[in-house]
């Protein structure tokens, strides 16, 4: 277990190094940060002095080393626009994004498992056909369209739900603003979470269904039937546990992907999270913020994947973490 964690830590370090290198490398192609920083009135000579002061004229690796040194000290640079440490700016927006992703993951977990299992057990009845049909539509419609359609229907036409923002929030543990403890906050969460889940949910229903059907055709399920066990026990004890093993792995990776997906959802719903911030940063060529965002998202990926591997090892007896 300890050996596994140490190995994972080394791997994570390498991944983060590569991410930071890539993130840092692209910033030179993102345009001139000075154009955004200073007005028209500043002369070319003054600009050049500013560039020298900011170290923008140094060779790439000198710049990267300087950057790397700072990163190791926890300093991801200062946002050009906010004039604040980039990491702080992003971490301020992190709760909003994580709450959005959490809501979507809850929706996916609550609906995909029963629907996937049901459509696997009764593949031919009309409910299953309906679920499968809708899931195909869900996968095919892009997130931005789903978001706009939901807003139009529930916010504009029916005025049941708010169309943008986080609504009323409560501060937890000093700094974490949450929308999960007020009615208004929950109402504001509903549409964005559904939108964010709209592609992953059908994907997972189909994944669980396919995996479950595969498992149900295996010998140990037939053997369980020949032992005279009840169908419920065969489905839920023999079938589901084996079905969920590969799903856990895929699901963990998708949580990272969803953090990235929030860019579109947050833009549609004016959600004050990281994704929305990132898009603004790109528009403003706020390179330290862009690089910091990439590093934070990279770190989230690494952390969720490590956690998923740990959980997988705990659930699957054939995996021994200590031996890896």
């Amino acid at each position, binding site marked *: 277990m300890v050996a596994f964690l140490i190995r994972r830590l080394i791997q994570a370090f390498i991944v983060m190094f590569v991410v930071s290198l890539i993130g840092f490398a692209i910033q030179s192609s993102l345009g001139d940060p000075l154009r955004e920083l200073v007005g028209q009135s500043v002369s070319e000579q003054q600009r050049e002095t500013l560039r020298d002061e900011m170290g923008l004229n140094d060779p790439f690796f000198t710049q990267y080393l300087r950057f790397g040194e700072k990163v190791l000290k926890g300093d991801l640079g200062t946002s050009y626009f906010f004039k604040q440490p980039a990491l702080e700016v992003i971490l301020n927006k992190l709760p909003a994004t994580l709450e959005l992703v959490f809501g979507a993951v809850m929706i996916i977990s609550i609906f995909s498992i029963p629907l996937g299992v049901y459509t696997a057990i009764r593949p031919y009845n009309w409910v299953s056909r309906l679920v499968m049909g809708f899931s195909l539509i869900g996968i095919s419609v892009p997130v931005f369209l789903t978001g706009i359609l939901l807003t139009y229907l529930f916010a504009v036409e029916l005025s049941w739900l708010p169309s943008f923002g986080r609504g009323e929030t409560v501060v937890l543990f000093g700094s974490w603003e949450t929308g999960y403890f007020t009615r208004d906050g929950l109402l504001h969460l509903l549409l964005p979470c559904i939108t964010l889940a709209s592609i992953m949910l059908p994907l997972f229903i189909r994944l669980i269904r396919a995996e479950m059907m595969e498992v149900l*055709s*295996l*010998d*140990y399920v*037939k*053997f*369980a*039937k*020949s*032992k*005279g*066990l*009840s169908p419920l*026990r065969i489905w839920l*004890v*023999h079938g589901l*546990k*084996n079905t969920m*093993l590969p799903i856990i792995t895929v699901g963990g990776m998708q949580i990272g992907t969803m953090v990235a997906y929030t860019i579109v959802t947050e833009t549609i719903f004016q959600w004050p999270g990281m994704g929305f911030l990132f898009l603004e940063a790109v528009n403003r060529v706020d390179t330290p913020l862009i690089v910091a965002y990439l590093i934070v998202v990279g770190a989230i990926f690494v952390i969720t994947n490590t956690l998923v591997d740990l959980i997988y090892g705990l*659930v*699957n*007896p*054939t995996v021994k973490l200590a031996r890896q």
Partner: protein
Amino acid sequence: MALLEVRNLEVSFRTREGIIKPLRDVSFTLNQGERLGIIGESGAGKSILAFAILNLLSRPGYISGGQVLFDNQDLATLSEKRLRSIRGSRVAMIFQDPMTTLNPVMTIGQQMIESLRAHRKISRKDARVIAIQKLKQVQIPSPATRIDQYPHELSGGMRQRVTIAIALLLDPLLIIADEPTTALDVTIQAEIISLLLDLCVSNNVGLVLITHDLCVLSQMTRRMIVMYAGRIVEQGPTKEIINDAQHPYTQGLINALPQLSIPGTELKQIPGAVPGLQHVPSGCAFNPRCEFSMDICTRVEPGFTCSGGCSVACHMVEELVNSMGEDL
């Protein structure tokens, strides 16, 4: 008294090309404590017969005719709930590949205890005691520690012992073993066979042994059935059939066995292959591969003729028996 009586059993599969019948007109009886072997090539319908006896066929297969009488109940028409109470407790099954018949994420003990608790009102603790005792019966060393292990921690032979222990848990009257030794090496095969044989004899358990191995079959059974393309072609005492097979197909099977006593002789094989179920030849299904095929064989499906202690489905044997009758 007959323990199991199968009467004219027919199994159908609904496919896109129409209905196919992988099992037709299968009848046999098995007495209490009797051991019956069923042999045939792959695709002869042996495994389907094994599953059909317990009415465990999964879609698109179903029993489309005949009866499976066990203990005066017809398993072919019994309700699912009643069937469940018979499966595992009165009739148990052993599968071919012990690597895949045990659930990889459950311990041996969990898989044994759930079986006991599905049929008896019994505490986990008591069930565990019975499970350990059964593991001891199948000669698993240190059963009290083995019971908490997962299947991947056991060797193939060990796992098959575990599945046998699971089959014996509720003291069934009948065990259906579907090629129980095919996936094991020869030395372990011999151990498992003698173990299974001992347990069947000492507990007076009936056995339907499905195999394609004539040697295994001759060691374990008194009576045997030869199947071809979903039908029984020959049925009778094992010794008699192996010494003096009547049906050309059975003769072919026996002649195809390598003779260890005469090294260097070429193996005889039956020409051709088992027909696909969509294109079973008319008349006798074996006629295209049969060296004695006559005109009638391609037109009329042969009925059963009694010859000695055996019953054989072959026109040639029928004529032979009839002419002998005339001579007398």
